[in-house]
């Protein structure tokens, strides 16, 4: 059975593995394709162009800050005041710019000392590192923008054209509008992630593949476990059947398969197998019984013959002895008469015995013919004038049975019941049809049979009653067995005994049809 199990597991594995090969190729290509959908030159180009554009805007805004500062430096107020004295520089008022929030404008001298500051809002007092001015050591540099994007603090520095002897710097502090700043950072972040995804392509695809492999391995393990379970479930009944068949082959007809709750074909197989072995057992028992009974019958015939033959000469001889005596001695004559009567009685008993033996030994062949069982029971009951109570199932069909034998059977059982009766209690005969079987129950309210006797009551020459040859129930069982049925007895001391006959309907009808 292990071979079948292995085959089932292998088949299940193949069922999983065969579609897996194209699936794996498909998954592999899908992963690549999916990755390519997101990470491809067009996306890269788009992101790079977006960044370039964003950077261009950013640079333009920075230039705009310097332009604003230059414009402020050129305002009339500033220029005119500068001509008078650096100490009275009149700084211009705030300019409106769409992109920038201006915080403060400061004037520094050439050494980086702050001379004046005008605050446009509360953030104007922010610190300014004068070291930035060292960037102007390069003579050509006129302006620069220093930025701290994280703090959103931008500082534009402009070298002022010398006015008289004064050389200095105008410093404008501002912050950018936050939304474009954040959007630009977000775009940069996306580009960086894209770059990372591009670089990590192989690693990520490998991770996808490993994930796929892990899921597949788990599924494969589940399939193997499922395969083991299914194969065990499928083959287990067959293993049991193999064992059971071997047991029956050895002659153990009592072996039964455990009754399964399964309602599928396997469950039916177990049910029918058990039914078959039960039938085999019954047939075997019937055969044994019938063979045993045949032996008993043969012996009965022989005994009847051996006993019957000398009876007539014995009787005639004794008769002659009595007849020839002249009666001179009265006492002797009386004794002779008494002995003669005793011998006559015993010969009579022996004749009855011989008659019973002969009857038992010469039971005729079974003669099946279609008949009405209920009708037969009613006829028999009529012989006992009201002692019997009948509960007959009207659905019992006409079926094949040996009418004489059946009559004999019922008479035997009724006689048996009458003899066991304690006081004119009614005897019940019930019939019932159950599918393809007829159940007949003959019940008395007599003294019952003890457990020790129950096992022997169907044996020939076993009787608990005086003067009985003990053949009645043996013949009854023989009749039932010959009809392919069974007879059993249920009894309770002082409460009564029931003989239950189970006759197979189809079996008997088939015998008639084939006969």
């Amino acid at each position, binding site marked *: 059975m292990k071979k079948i199990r292995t085959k089932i597991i292998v088949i299940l594995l193949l069922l999983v593995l065969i579609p897996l090969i194209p699936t794996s190729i498909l998954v592999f290509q899908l992963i690549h394709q999916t990755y390519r959908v997101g990470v491809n030159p067009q996306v890269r180009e788009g992101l790079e162009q977006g960044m370039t554009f964003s950077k261009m805007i950013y640079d333009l805004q920075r230039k705009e800050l310097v332009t604003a500062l230059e414009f402020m430096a050129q305002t009339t107020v500033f220029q005119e005041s500068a001509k008078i004295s650096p100490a009275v520089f009149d700084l211009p008022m705030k300019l409106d710019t769409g992109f920038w929030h201006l915080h403060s404008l400061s004037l520094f001298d050439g050494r980086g000392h702050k001379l004046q500051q005008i605050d446009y809002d509360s953030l104007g007092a922010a610190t300014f590192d004068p070291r930035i001015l060292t960037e102007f050591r390069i003579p050509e540099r006129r302006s620069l923008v220093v930025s701290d994007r994280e703090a959103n603090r931008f500082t534009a520095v402009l070298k002022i054209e010398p006015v008289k002897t004064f050389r200095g710097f105008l410093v404008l502090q501002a912050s950018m509008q936050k939304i474009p700043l954040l959007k630009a950072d977000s775009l940069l972040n996306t580009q*960086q*992630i894209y770059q*990372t995804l591009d670089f*990590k392509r192989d690693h990520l*695809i490998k*991770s996808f593949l490993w*994930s796929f492999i*892990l899921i597949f391995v788990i599924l494969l393990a589940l399939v193997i476990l499922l395969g083991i379970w299914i194969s065990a479930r499928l083959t287990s009944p067959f293993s049991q059947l193999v064992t059971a068949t071997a047991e029956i082959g050895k002659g153990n007809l009592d072996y039964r398969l455990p009754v399964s709750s399964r309602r599928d074909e396997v469950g039916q197989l177990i049910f029918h197998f058990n039914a078959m072995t039960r039938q085999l057992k019954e047939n075997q028992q019937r055969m044994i019984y019938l063979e045993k009974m045949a032996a008993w019958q043969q012996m009965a015939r022989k005994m009847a013959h051996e006993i019957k033959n000398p009876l007539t000469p014995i009787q005639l001889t004794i008769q002659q002895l009595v007849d020839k005596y002249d009666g001179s001695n009265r006492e002797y004559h009386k004794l002779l008469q008494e002995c003669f009567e005793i011998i006559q009685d015993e010969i009579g008993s022996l004749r009855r015995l011989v008659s019973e033996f002969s009857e038992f030994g010469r039971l005729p062949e079974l003669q099946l013919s279609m008949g009405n069982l209920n009708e037969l029971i009613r006829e028999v009951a009529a012989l006992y004038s009201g002692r019997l109570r009948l509960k007959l199932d009207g659905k019992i069909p006409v079926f094949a049975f040996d009418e004489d034998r059946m009559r004999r059977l019922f008479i035997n059982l009724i006689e048996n019941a009458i003899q066991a009766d304690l006081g004119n209690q009614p005897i019940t005969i019930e019939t019932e049809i159950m599918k393809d079987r007829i159940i007949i129950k003959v019940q008395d309210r007599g003294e019952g049979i003890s457990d020790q006797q129950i096992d022997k009551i169907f044996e020939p020459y076993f009787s608990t009653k005086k003067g009985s040859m003990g053949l009645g129930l043996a013949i009854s069982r023989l009749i039932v067995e010959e009809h392919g049925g069974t007879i059993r007895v249920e009894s309770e001391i002082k409460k009564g005994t029931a003989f239950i006959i189970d006759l197979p309907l189809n079996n008997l009808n088939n015998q008639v049809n084939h006969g």
Partner: protein
Amino acid sequence: MSVLKLRLKFFRWLLLVFPAVLSAQNFQLSGILPYAAEDSLKVDFSVQQLWEGKIAKTLLAGIPLDIQLDIILLNPDLKVISQKSYIGEVVYDVWEEKFTLLNLGIFPAHCNSLADLRNWFEHIERVGLNPLETLVPEVKYQVRIDFSVLLLNKKQNQELKRWMQSADQTEEEFASRERSTGFRLNINQLVQLFFSGDEEPEKFQVSGSSTPFTLTDLMIK
């Protein structure tokens, strides 16, 4: 599909399944020159063609790069006598277009252009190694330099993970909107499980050694 294409596909598949680092980077270490100056052993060297290809691309995208420099003094048996390690980070500010080198004491703090940066790495000079008094005059020494660039450091990997997680969250939100019920395998976490095991950053490394020298040779020069 031709046999050649199939083979190529199979080869690519093998590359994915079996970890292998194939790099297109060809940067080199050259001109490793040890010399005696200011009572100590110093070394000049040049890292050529470093800021090209993947490395340059990563840096110019604003992704920080980790740099590790190990300068090792070896004896004739090639056993390590001393070692100096410099670990730092190179950052490019995309908006200000400035390069910043963090924690690398021997390098400049800022470079205004990629050309400047290239120039600096092509002329790394006067990196101190050992006091001369610790060296035996007639023994032959050798300087070995290991230079490595770590692409996509842990921080960037974390960024990628966060990105992947955010994709998962979006999916969950979508699922809840759709009132999805029943078993749902979190593929993203599964992928991350394997991805986590692969956190080792992509590393490009180059090594070079000087010709063997004695202290006497250096003093004569």
